[in-house]
C-alpha cells in the first residue's frame, strides 16, 4: 500500500438515525444501514461478497435476515477498536482474494429494551465489569479510563478544566451537527464544572452516553470504486497496537492506548506525517481520551494536551480540528464507528457546518476490548484521504 495510488477505499456509507431510545431492534438498524450504504455506493445486495459483523451478536442470523449471499461472514470483537479493525480486516480479505466488496456492519440498541426482556435497568455499556476488580466495586468503563486520567493529572498537572475544554469543544461541534445528541445545545465550562462528579476526575459531562444506531461501511478496491456512484474515500494507511506490551512494562496507565506502533505503521504506509493531517476523529468515550491521543500522535507534546485543547486548537479554527461531529461525547455512541463515519464525511466534504475546508487527510482512531483488568487492549489507526 505504501507509495503509489491507494489500493483500497471506502465506497459506501450508511448511517441510520443515532440516538437514545429509538425503539428499533439492532438487526433492523443493521439492515437499514446496509440499504443506505448500498444505495450510497450504487451497489446491490448480490455485489456484497464479504460480511464482517462488528456487533456483539455472532452475525450469522444477520446474513440471512439481510438477504446477503457473501463468500464469507464473520464477526469481530475488539470493543471500540472493532470498527477500525473491521476495515483493516476487509482490506486483508480483499487482498487475499476472498472478496471484492466487503460490508463492515454495526447496529446496536443499548438504550432500547429487547422485547421479552425482564428485570431492572441493564446499566448499559457504562456498567461493564472488569473481572475480579468488580468485587471491590470497580464497575464501568468510566473508572477504567479514570485510572489513565489520574496518572495524567499527576504527571503533568492536567486539570478538570482541561477535561472540560474537551467537552466544551466537542459540544460546540455537535451543536452545529443535526442528528447528534448535542445539536443546538452548546455547553460552557461552568456547566461542565457544575455537573456532578461520577468517578474522579470525571464529571457527568466528561462521559459519553449510550445511543442506538446502525452503520455500514463498504470497503472495496480503488479500481472497483471508480465505477460506483458515491465519492470514494481513499484508505491511505492502517496500523494496530496492543496495550498488553505496556502492561508488562508497567507503562499501561501512562499511555492510554498503544498508539505508537499503530501510528508508525499507518503513517509509514501513507507516506505522511502527523503534520499532514487536516482533521482528527478520535475514539472518545471520556474527555481524557482525545487529550491523551493528541499527545500520543504528536499533535502536541507529552503533557500539553490540556492547554492545547483549552487554547482552542481542536476547534474549527485550531491546529487540528478534532471530533468535528461532536464525537461520542456529544454526537452519538456507535462504538468505534462514530469516529470512522466522521472521518469519511470530512473526506467527502459532507461535514456541513463543521466541515474542515479543503481537508485532504483524516486521522481516525479506535480502542477497546476488555481483558478482565484493563479496558483498552486493542488499538487501530486509520488514515483516510479525499479521493483526487
Amino acid at each position, binding site marked *: 500500500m505504501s507509495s503509489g495510488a491507494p489500493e483500497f477505499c471506502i465506497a459506501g456509507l450508511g448511517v441510520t438515525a443515532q440516538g437514545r431510545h429509538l425503539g428499533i431492534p439492532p438487526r433492523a438498524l443493521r439492515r437499514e444501514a446496509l440499504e443506505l450504504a448500498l444505495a450510497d455506493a450504487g451497489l446491490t445486495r448480490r455485489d456484497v461478497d464479504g460480511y464482517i459483523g462488528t456487533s456483539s451478536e455472532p452475525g450469522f442470523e444477520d446474513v440471512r435476515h439481510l438477504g446477503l449471499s457473501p463468500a464469507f461472514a464473520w464477526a469481530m470483537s475488539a470493543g471500540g477498536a472493532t470498527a477500525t479493525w473491521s476495515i483493516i480486516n476487509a482490506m486483508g480479505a480483499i487482498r487475499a482474494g476472498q472478496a471484492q466488496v466487503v460490508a463492515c456492519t454495526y447496529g446496536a440498541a443499548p438504550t432500547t429494551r429487547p422485547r421479552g426482556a425482564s428485570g431492572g435497568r441493564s*446499566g448499559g455499556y*457504562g*456498567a461493564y*465489569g*472488569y*473481572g*475480579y*476488580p*468488580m*468485587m*471491590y*466495586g*470497580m*464497575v*464501568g468503563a468510566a*473508572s477504567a479510563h*479514570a*485510572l*489513565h486520567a*489520574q*496518572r495524567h493529572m*499527576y504527571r503533568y498537572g492536567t486539570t478538570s478544566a482541561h477535561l472540560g475544554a474537551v467537552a466544551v469543544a466537542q459540544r460546540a461541534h455537535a451543536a452545529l451537527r443535526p442528528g447528534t445528541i448535542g445539536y443546538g445545545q452548546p455547553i460552557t465550562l461552568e456547566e461542565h464544572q457544575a455537573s*456532578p*462528579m*461520577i*468517578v*474522579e*476526575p470525571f464529571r457527568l459531562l466528561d462521559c459519553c452516553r449510550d445511543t442506538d444506531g446502525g452503520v455500514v461501511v463498504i470497503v472495496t478496491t480503488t479500481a472497483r470504486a471508480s465505477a460506483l456512484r458515491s465519492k470514494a474515500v481513499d484508505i491511505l494507511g492502517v496500523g494496530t497496537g496492543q496495550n498488553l506490551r505496556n*502492561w*508488562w*512494562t*508497567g507503562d499501561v*496507565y501512562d499511555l492510554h492506548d498503544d498508539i505508537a506502533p499503530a501510528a508508525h505503521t499507518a503513517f509509514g504506509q501513507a507516506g505522511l506525517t502527523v503534520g499532514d493531517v487536516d482533521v482528527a476523529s478520535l475514539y472518545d468515550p471520556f474527555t481524557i481520551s482525545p487529550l491523551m491521543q493528541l499527545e500520543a500522535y504528536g499533535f502536541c507534546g507529552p503533557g500539553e494536551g490540556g492547554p492545547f485543547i483549552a487554547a482552542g486548537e481542536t476547534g474549527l479554527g485550531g491546529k487540528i480540528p478534532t471530533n468535528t461531529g461532536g464525537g461520542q461525547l456529544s454526537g452519538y455512541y456507535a462504538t468505534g464507528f462514530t469516529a470512522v463515519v466522521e472521518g469519511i464525511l470530512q473526506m467527502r466534504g459532507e461535514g456541513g457546518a463543521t466541515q474542515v475546508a479543503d481537508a485532504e487527510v483524516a486521522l481516525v482512531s479506535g480502542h477497546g476490548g476488555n481483558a*478482565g*483488568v484493563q479496558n483498552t487492549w486493542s488499538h487501530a489507526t486509520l488514515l483516510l484521504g479525499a479521493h483526487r
Partner: protein
Amino acid sequence: MTPLLPPNVGADELDDPFWDGCRRHEFLLHVCRECRRAYWPAASCIDHGWAPMQWQPSSGRGEVHTYTVFHHAYMPWLADRVPYAIAVVRLDEGPFFHSDIVGCAPSVVAIGLRVEVVFEEAGEGWVLPHFRPTPADAPCATDDRRIVP
C-alpha cells in the same frame, strides 16, 4: 446482603490458588522460577512460558500507582459505599493489583501512597485482600518494580 461476585463476573479458576492463599492470609503472586518475574493474575511468563510458573508468597506491599474515587453507585449493592476509592496498587514485586483502599478516607488516597494488604472475611467462604496505608518507613523491596527491565 452484598453479593461477593455480581452475576457477570467470576473469579478465574486459574487464580484459585491465589484465593486459597487469601484464606490462609497469604498474598501469593504467580512467579517464574527461571527469571523471578512476578505476575498477577495467573499468566505465562513472557520469556519462559507456563512450565516454571509457581504461586509464591509475596510482601503484600506496594504503592498506589493510580486510583479513582467513585461518587456514583453503578449498582444497588454499591449505594451505601459511595464515595469509595479503587486503586491500582503497584506491588513491590512488580505486578499491578486492583483493590479498594481501606483504613482511610477516600480523600487521603493519592498516587505514591504506600499501602499494605489486609485480609477480611467476605462471606460464603471467601477472604478478600484489601489494601490500607502503611507507615511511611515501610521498606520497598526493590527500586526497579518493572516486570521487564
